[in-house]
C-alpha cells in the first residue's frame, strides 16, 4: 500500500479579515477597474460601514475618508477593538457630522487590510495572499473604488466628502475628479502633494519593514510569520510625526518609566520610549505590513497639481462649484499649515468657494482626531452653512 506523501497545504487565510462584522460590496464585477499603474482589478471586495439613514432624495450622504491606518469603523463601537470608532467625537448623533440627519459612509481604502482588497487578501489565482503581486495603487485608485461603491449604493451625489490626512487627499481627489458628485469638500490637516520630508519618513518605515527577515520578501503570511519588529519601527517613526514637540514634552518630558534612575542600558528607561514601543508592538496585530507599504506609497505618489492641473493646482479645480473648507492645525508638522495654505491658494486661484482656518492647537497632526472645540465649531458652522445652501434640514429640524 502506498501512502500519499504530499501533505495538503493548510489554506492560507487573511489574518486581518477574520470575519468581524462589516458590510461588504463586491465591486467591478461587470467591468474591471483600471488602476493608474496599468493593472486592472475586477470583482473585488470593499468593506464599509454606514451610519444614519439615507433620505428619500438621496441627498444627505456624507463620505468620510480615512487616514493611513484608519478603517471603516468611524463611529459607534469598533467590533474588533470593542472601543469607540476612530472619529466618534465628530461623527454620531448630534455631532457635527450628525448621523441623525446625515447618512454617513466610511469604507476601508483600496490596498487596506480591514476587508477591502489589499495585499493580505487571497489572490484567487494562487490561493495565497497577494503580497507584492498586488498591483500598486494610488489615491486616485482609492477614490475610483469609492465611486464604484457609491454606484453600488445607488447614490449619485454626495452632500460632502470629509477626511483628514490621507483622507484629506482623497477628499481633494474627489473634488478634482468627480466635482459633479459632491456639494462640499472638507480636507483636513493634509496636502496636495507629499513633501520630500513626508516621503522620507515613510521611506524609513518601509525600509524598516523590508529589512525585517520575517518580512520574507513580502511572503510572510504564506510562511506563517509576521515582520513584527519592522512594522513596530515603522509605526514608531511615523507616530513621532503625528505629535508636536510641545505635546511630547508635556505628555512625557524626560520622565522615567517605572523606575527611579536610568539603568545604563537599552531598556525603555524613558516613558516616551515605552510609549512608542507599545504603539509599535500592538500595531502589527491590527495592520498588515504590506498594506503599510502600499498605502504609504500611494501617498508618496500623490501630487494633485501634477496629476490634474499640468503642475498648477488652480487648474485642477478650474470652474469648480464645490464648496471647500480647509482646516489646518498650527502645531502640525506632518502636514504643515503652509501645505494646507497651498491648497487654499490653488482654490482661490480657481475662484472656488473656499473657507480656511488654521486652528491654534498644541496637539500636532493628531489634533484632527481629538477634542478641539475651535475645530469642532468651525466644522459644525461650515456644514450647517452648506446644509442650508443644499436644502438639507439644519440642527433641530432633523
Amino acid at each position: 500500500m502506498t501512502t500519499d506523501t504530499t501533505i495538503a497545504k493548510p489554506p492560507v487565510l487573511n489574518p486581518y479579515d477574520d470575519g468581524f462584522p462589516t458590510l461588504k460590496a463586491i465591486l467591478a464585477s461587470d467591468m474591471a477597474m483600471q488602476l493608474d499603474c496599468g493593472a486592472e482589478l475586477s470583482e473585488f471586495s470593499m468593506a464599509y460601514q454606514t451610519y444614519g439613514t439615507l433620505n428619500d432624495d438621496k441627498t444627505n450622504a456624507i463620505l468620510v475618508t480615512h487616514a493611513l491606518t484608519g478603517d471603516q469603523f468611524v463611529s459607534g463601537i469598533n467590533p474588533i477593538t470593542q472601543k469607540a470608532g476612530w472619529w466618534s467625537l465628530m461623527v454620531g448623533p448630534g455631532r457635527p457630522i450628525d448621523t441623525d440627519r446625515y447618512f454617513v459612509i466610511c469604507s476601508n481604502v483600496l490596498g487596506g487590510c480591514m476587508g477591502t482588497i489589499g495585499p493580505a487578501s487571497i489572490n484567487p489565482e494562487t490561493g495565497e495572499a497577494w503580497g507584492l503581486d498586488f498591483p500598486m495603487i494610488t489615491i486616485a485608485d482609492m477614490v475610483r473604488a469609492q465611486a464604484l461603491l457609491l454606484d453600488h449604493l445607488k447614490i449619485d451625489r454626495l452632500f460632502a466628502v470629509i477626511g483628514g490626512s490621507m483622507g484629506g487627499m482623497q477628499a481633494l481627489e474627489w473634488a478634482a475628479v468627480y466635482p459633479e458628485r459632491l456639494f462640499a469638500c472638507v480636507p483636513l490637516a493634509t496636502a496636495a502633494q507629499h513633501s520630500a520630508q513626508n516621503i522620507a519618513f515613510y521611506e524609513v518605515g518601509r525600509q524598516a519593514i523590508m529589512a525585517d527577515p520575517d518580512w520574507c520578501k513580502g511572503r510572510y503570511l504564506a510562511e506563517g510569520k509576521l515582520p513584527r519588529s519592522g512594522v513596530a519601527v515603522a509605526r514608531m517613526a511615523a507616530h513621532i510625526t503625528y505629535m508636536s514637540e510641545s505635546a511630547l514634552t508635556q505628555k512625557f518630558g524626560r520622565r522615567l518609566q517605572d523606575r527611579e534612575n536610568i539603568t545604563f542600558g537599552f531598556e525603555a528607561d524613558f516613558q516616551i520610549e515605552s510609549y512608542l514601543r507599545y504603539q509599535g508592538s500592538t500595531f502589527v496585530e491590527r495592520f498588515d505590513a504590506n498594506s503599510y507599504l502600499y498605502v504609504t506609497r500611494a501617498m508618496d505618489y500623490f501630487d494633485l497639481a501634477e496629476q490634474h492641473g499640468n503642475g498648477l493646482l488652480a487648474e485642477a479645480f478650474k470652474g469648480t462649484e464645490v464648496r471647500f473648507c480647509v482646516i489646518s492645525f498650527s502645531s502640525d508638522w506632518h502636514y504643515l499649515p503652509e501645505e494646507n495654505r497651498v491648497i487654499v491658494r490653488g482654490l482661490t486661484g480657481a475662484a472656488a468657494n473656499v473657507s480656511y482656518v488654521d486652528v491654534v492647537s498644541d496637539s500636532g497632526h493628531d489634533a484632527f482626531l481629538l477634542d478641539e472645540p475651535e475645530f469642532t465649531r468651525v466644522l459644525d458652522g461650515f456644514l450647517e452653512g452648506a446644509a442650508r445652501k443644499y436644502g438639507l434640514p439644519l440642527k433641530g429640524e432633523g
Partner: protein
Amino acid sequence: MNNRKNIRVDLQLIADMIKPGSRVLDVGCSDGQLLDYLVNEKGISGRGLEISPEGVNQCVSKGLSVVQGDAEEDLGYYPDNAFDYVILSQTLQATHHPDQIVKDLLRLGKRAIVSFPNFGHWRVRKYLFFNGRMPVNDTLPYEWYNSPNLHFCTIKDFIAMCEEMGITIEKSLALDADGKAHRIRTSLFFANLLGEQAVFLLHKD
C-alpha cells in the same frame, strides 16, 4: 442671532453701493457682519479674507466663505476680475502699502469700495493742535505705540492718491459724527473737516 437688518452705519453705506446678486470679496471682513448682511439681504455671492483666527471662526461658523490670511500676502493669489466688488473696510490704514493694496483691489474686482477713518477731521486736528499729542478718540482708540494703524490719511490725501494712480472715484461719502452721510463732491473742504469716516467707490480708468 443678530438682527441682520441693522448693521453699523458705515457698513450700511457700503452695502448700499452694492448691486444685488453680484460677486463680492470683503478684505478684512472681521466677524463677517457686512458679508452676512450682503449674502442674506442682497443675495450676493460672497467671499472674505480675514487675518484674525477669531474673526475667521465666527465667519465660517455663520456659514460664510472666509479664508484666514493676510491681505498683503494673499490678494496676489486671486485671479484678475474675479469679483464685481472688492471691499476694504476700515483696514487701509493698517496696511504696509496702501497704494499697492488699492491697486490689487482693482485688479481682482471691477470696482473697489474703500472706507477709512479721516485723519483730517476737525477733532483730530484740534487734538493734535492743542494737546500736541497723537489723537485718541472713539474712532481712533489706540495710543501711538500700540496702534495697528500704520498709514493714516485724510480724505484729501486719499483723493490725491487716486488721481496719481489714475483711479476713478465713482462715489464718495463722508460720515459725520452723528452718522450722517455727506457727498464729498459737494465740498471737499467741509467733508475733510467734518467727516469722521469716508467711503469711496472706485473703478479703473
